[in-house]
């Protein structure tokens, strides 16, 4: 499936999704989550950890289990799609949790193409309503 098709499917899913399929915590409608580094299409050297910057506007960061309006904590999705929006974000090698309120991290990936995407979770690791996620970037390690 090419990129445009993906976007169409994503749009259709968003349009027809049951509104109940979202977490119980509200997010500001202008919340903006983005990967500040690396850039989409970036080529990075193999065998060397690189830093990933978590960018967030119109919303704040709070560690897990802290309930504070308009906040959440970062999750970095590696080589995977967004998980269901109404359940806790999985915790495994493809879903890194930053429950201490971290706003950047170091990652080392094997050679090849990889995707990175950010997703905010609420105090219980559940995506917000509406979900706050970044654009997915593709990087190449070689």
């Amino acid at each position, binding site marked *: 499936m090419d990129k445009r098709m993906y976007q169409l499917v994503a749009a259709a899913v968003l349009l027809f999704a049951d509104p109940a399929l979202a977490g119980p915590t509200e997010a500001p409608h202008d919340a903006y989550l983005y990967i*500040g580094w690396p850039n989409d299409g970036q080529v990075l050297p193999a065998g060397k950890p690189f830093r990933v*910057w*978590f*960018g*967030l*506007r119109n*919303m*704040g*960061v*709070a*560690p897990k289990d*802290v309930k*504070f*309006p*308009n*906040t959440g904590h970062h999750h970095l999705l590696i080589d995977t799609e967004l998980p269901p929006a109404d359940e806790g974000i999985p915790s495994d090698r493809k879903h890194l949790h*930053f429950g*201490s*309120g*971290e*706003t*950047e991290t170091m990652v080392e990936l094997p050679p090849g193409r990889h995707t990175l995407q950010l997703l905010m979770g609420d105090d219980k690791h559940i995506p917000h309503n509406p979900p706050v996620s970044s654009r997915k970037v593709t990087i190449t390690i070689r």
Partner: protein
Amino acid sequence: MFREITFAALATASLSVAPAATAATPSPPNAEAYIIWPPDGAVIAGGKLWVRMGLRNMGVCPKGVDLPNVGHHHLLIDTELAPDAQIPSDRNHLHFGAGETEARLELPPGKHTLQMFLGDHDHMPHDPPVHSRKITITVP
């Protein structure tokens, strides 16, 4: 005699209480706050900018929440930092008590300094204090 004992007791009490009252929230020794953007020396046409606040080896947490190894950002504009006092809240000391990691600024023409300073749940600096290098930007 009785008076001396009272004095002694008072002195002991105040001595033992004093360190607890002034103990600052500890920060991890490798914690580092830094301004991701703008770079030092940047020229910002129009004076409107987003400041991206970076933090390493420590986490961001809204004010009022007392957890280990966290704090919230303060941005000091055109002022010096005072590492021993509660961070003031005024036009030169912007507080980001809701856990924000970016700040929208509108600055008048001229030279301006920016510096980040992390505060604990009570807006007090940590021990050791966590702050960024001070940078200078110019609005033409």
